[in-house]
């Protein structure tokens, strides 16, 4: 829980010593996460524990408050979706979609790239980015092997589209999950306010891709015929489970569309779907639950505890006041600063801790602007998600693809990626800026 939900009653005198210690623990943890010398989850758990101990000793934070700081809506939503995807991916449906789409365009490599770009964006809006690329990239290699073409343009396009598509919905990208949960924004609000700008961005990027890669990916008629000979039905190994998984997926997506109207949190919908699919699958849940990315879940928990300490000690409130004084309480300047600041920051460091820190800061601005806080939330979401395209380390999905590519003999170089990534980031954030300007200013 953050700000508006979490009541912070300070019945103690905040001292400079408390703020200094809390900031040191927070910035030290942040630095360690950025350095990537130690796994970010270890840093978050250790830093969170240090924050509680310092808080207990100095009297600004305790275990009970740290537990309250953990946003179980975010955690529940992530776990629920991981279970649903974990079961669904075993059915072979994602391979089916990839092969079917390649055959639909008669094995034409440029059109396959277009199809994969769109599929990645759509999957990424409905699943998380890392899951999407983990599903798409292996099949990209397989199809490119059949076409005897270099998979690199496909890999880059899938990275960019996963970050763009993920920005469109509440569940598409972890920053959006964090923002949606903290600000009480519904799935439909994300679709209504961020969907249009993403729909605008996608075709513009496709034109850019055509310009960059259109002439580079060519194959022979024989190789195209090889793709046409693939039988997508072969990938469906368990049709009965596929029907159940699709039924639950559709139910969950419908649930997301109406969770606001139903008065339920997104986590409730996701966990209901996970429970239902586990029940329908009927097998021992141990194997499925092992597939949950506990490392990511505990990273989030550690972060919530860390940022909670900063909130309780009043450092977030102080930073919000400084930011408002910098922007002189001007709505437009604040929104521009958050959009571009989030984009640049997210291009170089993990956007999850950044957004987790920014959320309570934005909450402190409640009541300052006549337009309300929502446009600021949209600025933060767009900046954090689209900024992830700036460099290879900008988003987890980028690193996952780079890792998989390198192990398969294709190295994505940091500078090569950045040359293209920064252009994509600048174009998409600029379009978002215009969109926000037209819609809210």
């Amino acid at each position, binding site marked *: 829980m953050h700000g508006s939900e979490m009541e912070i009653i300070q019945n103690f005198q905040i001292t400079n010593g408390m703020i200094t210690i809390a900031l040191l623990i927070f910035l030290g943890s942040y630095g360690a996460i950025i350095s990537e010398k130690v796994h970010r989850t270890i840093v978050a758990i250790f830093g969170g524990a240090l924050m509680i101990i310092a808080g207990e000793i100095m009297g600004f934070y305790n275990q009970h408050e740290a537990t309250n700081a953990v946003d179980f809506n975010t955690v529940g939503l992530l776990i629920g979706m991981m279970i649903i995807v974990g079961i669904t*991916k075993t059915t*072979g449906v994602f*391979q089916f979609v990839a*092969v079917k789409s390649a055959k639909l365009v008669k094995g034409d490599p440029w059109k396959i790239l277009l199809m994969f770009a769109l599929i990645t964006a759509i999957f990424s809006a409905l699943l998380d980015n890392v899951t999407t690329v*983990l599903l798409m*990239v*292996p*099949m990209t*290699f*397989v*199809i490119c*092997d*059949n076409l*005897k073409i270099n998979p690199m343009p496909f890999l880059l396009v899938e990275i960019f589209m996963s970050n763009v598509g993920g920005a469109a919905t509440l569940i598409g990208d972890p920053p959006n999950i964090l923002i949606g949960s903290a600000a009480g924004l519904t799935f439909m609000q994300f679709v209504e306010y961020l969907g249009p700008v993403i729909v605008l961005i996608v075709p513009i990027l496709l034109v850019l891709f055509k310009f960059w890669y259109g002439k580079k990916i060519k194959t022979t008629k024989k190789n195209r015929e*090889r793709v046409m000979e*693939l039988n997508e039905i*072969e*990938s469906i*190994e368990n049709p009965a489970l596929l029907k159940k998984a699709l039924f639950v997926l559709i139910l969950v997506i419908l649930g997301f569309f109406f969770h606001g109207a139903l008065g339920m949190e997104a986590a409730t919908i996701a966990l209901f779907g996970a429970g239902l699919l586990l029940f329908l699958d009927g097998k021992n849940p141990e194997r499925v639950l092992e597939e949950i990315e506990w490392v990511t879940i505990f990273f989030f928990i550690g972060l919530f505890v860390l940022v909670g300490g900063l909130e309780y000690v009043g450092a977030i409130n102080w930073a919000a006041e400084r930011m408002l004084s910098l922007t002189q309480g001007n709505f437009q300047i604040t929104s521009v600063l958050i959009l571009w600041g989030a984009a640049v920051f997210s291009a170089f460091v993990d956007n999850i801790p950044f957004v987790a820190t920014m959320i309570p800061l934005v909450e402190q601005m409640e009541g300052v602007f006549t337009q309300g806080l929502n446009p600021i939330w949209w600025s933060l979401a767009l900046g954090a998600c689209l900024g992830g395209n700036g460099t290879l380390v900008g988003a987890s999905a980028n690193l996952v693809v780079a890792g*998989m590519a390198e*192990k*398969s*003999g294709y190295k994505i170089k940091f500078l090569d990626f950045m040359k293209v990534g920064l252009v994509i980031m600048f174009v998409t954030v600029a379009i978002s800026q215009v969109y926000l300007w037209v819609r809210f200013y």
Partner: protein
Amino acid sequence: MFVKDYMCDWVNTISQKKTFPEVVKQMVDKKTNSIVVVDENKKPVGLISSRTLIKQVVPEYLRKNPTNSMFGAEGTFDKYSSKAKKLKLKDFMDTDFHCLSDDDAMIEAAVYSLKSNQRFMPVINGDGELIGAITRTCIKNALHNVFFKDNQINPKDNR
């Protein structure tokens, strides 16, 4: 029942300076599925099994979801095998393995064969030098002698 009673006292070994094709050739020539990589002092520094070799030629993108391999292109196996051609053994050998000593109890061999799914455990002397190996066949022989006391097999005859 001790390791020394059931271990094989001959083991195929190879130097860690050798390459991927050289170990493939030696394993094929010796008709073995496992080989111990040793340093110049005959101390085991790694293990290579047929599985270790196969891992080098299955690309990362096919490992996590075997269904993808149904659509694998002809030539993929050759392509990734060729990429592994220049690998030195020290680049890919299994270094996380359990060694036994000859006076260890057989239960330790049985436990470790299950725990790490290790089909083959080098046996070393007090100086850390390789003196033999325990395979699953050795453990099976020990099991036989537990059940059939009137018809004991001599493990030395059945290695």
